């Protein structure tokens, strides 16, 4: 187990280097001058531009720029954006809000998604199963921003149940955006749970559990569900990355000051260090969650062992 974790962590370092380099190269390739339009109506004085370019090392070749960036990053220095604010302070403001939003989305996935999946899995082709199948299909097929606008309009503006915007990003304000962000995955999670549960209900060990005279709740809730959750957990782990990246849309609709808007601005202004900083953190969270998921396999299925 210990050796497995160490091997995975080493692989993670490789992936992190690869991702940051890829993003760095992409930002490097972005056209446009970051100092265009920086000085109001007039063009910036050439001396200022030259000084800034030298300060940020913009005229160095890609590899040297990347090397310098990683060197600073290893010292815990995320760099600063062209307007002189450190990237770390911008991330500190934005990241907790987006993490909160994503956590809420994952919570909705787990509670509603798995709950609905269990209910429809144990009564296949029943009334609830059909209802869940149709509603998940509907949710899957509607673009997330349409869902966002419609829910914001009906639940927020018309009925006034939820706040319409979430500008300070407290938990209460983020409930509705979290639901919107998680809606698509919620539907997938419930379908996955349903299929997996229904398949496992036919397994030998379930028959044994029933034959032992265990109660139905225990057979389904403990024996079957534990094994059925493996594909679901895998899906949720992989989904964390999509949610973090997809938060950009939800944040736009509900006016949330998370990393979505920050990244969008940063890409537009060619703020290399900010974009790479955000992506590095996102990828790090994503990789750690997936390592956790792989370790969870062993908890869920005792047959799986990591040597």
């Amino acid at each position, binding site marked *: 187990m210990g050796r497995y974790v160490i091997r995975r962590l080493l*692989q993670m370092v*490789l*992936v992190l280097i*690869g*991702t940051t380099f*890829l*993003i760095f190269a*992409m*930002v490097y*390739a*972005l*056209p*446009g001058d970051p100092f265009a339009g920086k000085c109001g109506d007039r063009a910036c004085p050439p001396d200022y531009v030259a000084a800034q370019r030298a300060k940020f090392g913009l005229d160095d070749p890609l590899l040297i720029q990347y090397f310098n960036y990683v060197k600073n990053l290893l010292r815990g220095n995320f760099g600063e954006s062209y307007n002189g604010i450190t990237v770390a302070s911008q991330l500190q403001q934005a990241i907790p809000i987006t993490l909160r939003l994503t956590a809420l989305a994952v919570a909705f996935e787990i509670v509603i998604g798995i709950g609905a999946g269990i209910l429809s899995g*144990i*009564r*296949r*082709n*029943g009334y609830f199963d059909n209802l869940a199948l149709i509603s998940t*299909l*509907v949710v*899957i*097929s*509607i*673009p*997330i*921003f*349409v869902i966002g*606008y*419609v829910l914001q*309009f009906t639940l927020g*503006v018309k009925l006034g149940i939820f706040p319409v915007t979430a500008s300070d990003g407290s938990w209460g304000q983020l409930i509705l955006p979290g639901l919107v962000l998680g809606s698509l995955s919620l539907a997938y999670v419930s379908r996955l749970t349903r299929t997996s549960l229904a398949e496992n*209900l*036919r*397994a030998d060990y*379930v*028959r044994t559990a*029933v034959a032992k005279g265990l109660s139905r709740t225990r057979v389904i809730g403990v024996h079957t569900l534990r094994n059925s959750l493996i594909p679901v957990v895998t899906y949720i782990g992989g989904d964390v*990355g*999509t949610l*973090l*990246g*997809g938060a*950009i*849309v939800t944040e*736009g609709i509900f006016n949330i000051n998370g990393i979505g808007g920050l*990244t*969008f601005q940063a*890409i*537009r202004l060619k703020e290399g260090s900010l*974009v790479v900083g955000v*992506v590095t953190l*996102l*990828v790090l969270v*994503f*990789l750690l969650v997936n390592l956790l998921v792989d370790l969870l396999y062993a908890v869920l299925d005792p047959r799986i062992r990591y040597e």
Partner: protein
Amino acid sequence: MSDIDASAAATAPTARGGSQHHEAISTALPGRPQEGHGEPRSLGKDAWLDLRTNPIFLISATLIVVLLTMAMFPGLFTSQTPESADLTKSRVGPSSQAWFGYDLQGNDIYTLTVYGARASIMVGVLATTITLLLGSLAGIVAGYAGGWVDSVISRLTDVFYAIPLLLGAILVVFAFPTPPETPSIVIILRVVAALAILGWTPVARIMRSSVIGVKQADYVQAARALGASPVRIVLRHILPNAVAPVIVVSTIALGGYIAVEATLSFLGLGLTPPVVSWGVAISEASTFVRVSPHMLLFPSLFLSITVLAFIMLGDAVRDALDPKLR
């Protein structure tokens, strides 16, 4: 097996118990059903027989044929063109003359929706084709070669997989700015490139694992013993037996790409006017959702139906290809 069915039968309808009983017999005697039907059937033929009677497949296939026709010959569905606009009709709601109403510029929304099918479906089909080719190639090479080639490709897949699709797509789109005079096809290809550069990883992963699963099979060993070249082994023996899961995932992903295109357009980065697409229409309408919901309703309805059709098609094909679910 039938004992478990009995325990599950408390919840399952009785008709289901019958079909499972039949399945239990056919798995116990694998040779029988084929003899009974005269000639042996391949997996593909079997799947096709199953699909032909599956209502979900028939509905989704019909929808897709209609949508493809709409994409190829929009003139068959409407006599107007998406360029004709009448500003006096700006945001007029649905009526008997114009069932879908008019948009901000006074364009007939029905016409726009019909003409929008082409760009949206084109993005989906092209992105799926490219990810399918790229991902399959990477997956086959990694799975078949093994060793350090596998390690390199797998880590490379991890790198691309770890970047969120939407963020990466935004970067790619910004990397290729399109001046106002750019032809529509270039704008469409830009979005396709953005989706394909990051979208190939799931296909590669699935392909790799199914190739590894098939590689050790006896018939592959036999082909190798007979002196078949690696290319022949891969194309004739491994690929046909490993391709099914990839096809299923790609069909479902096609719908997803159409939705992502709409999301990119919503962010102002996907397709842009003069291209007419559902995504463009939806993103324009989302500003007016509180005053003219009809502008949002109809393009999103068509988008949803398309996405739904491809997802249902993928589901049906998976059920047909997976003998366990019969």
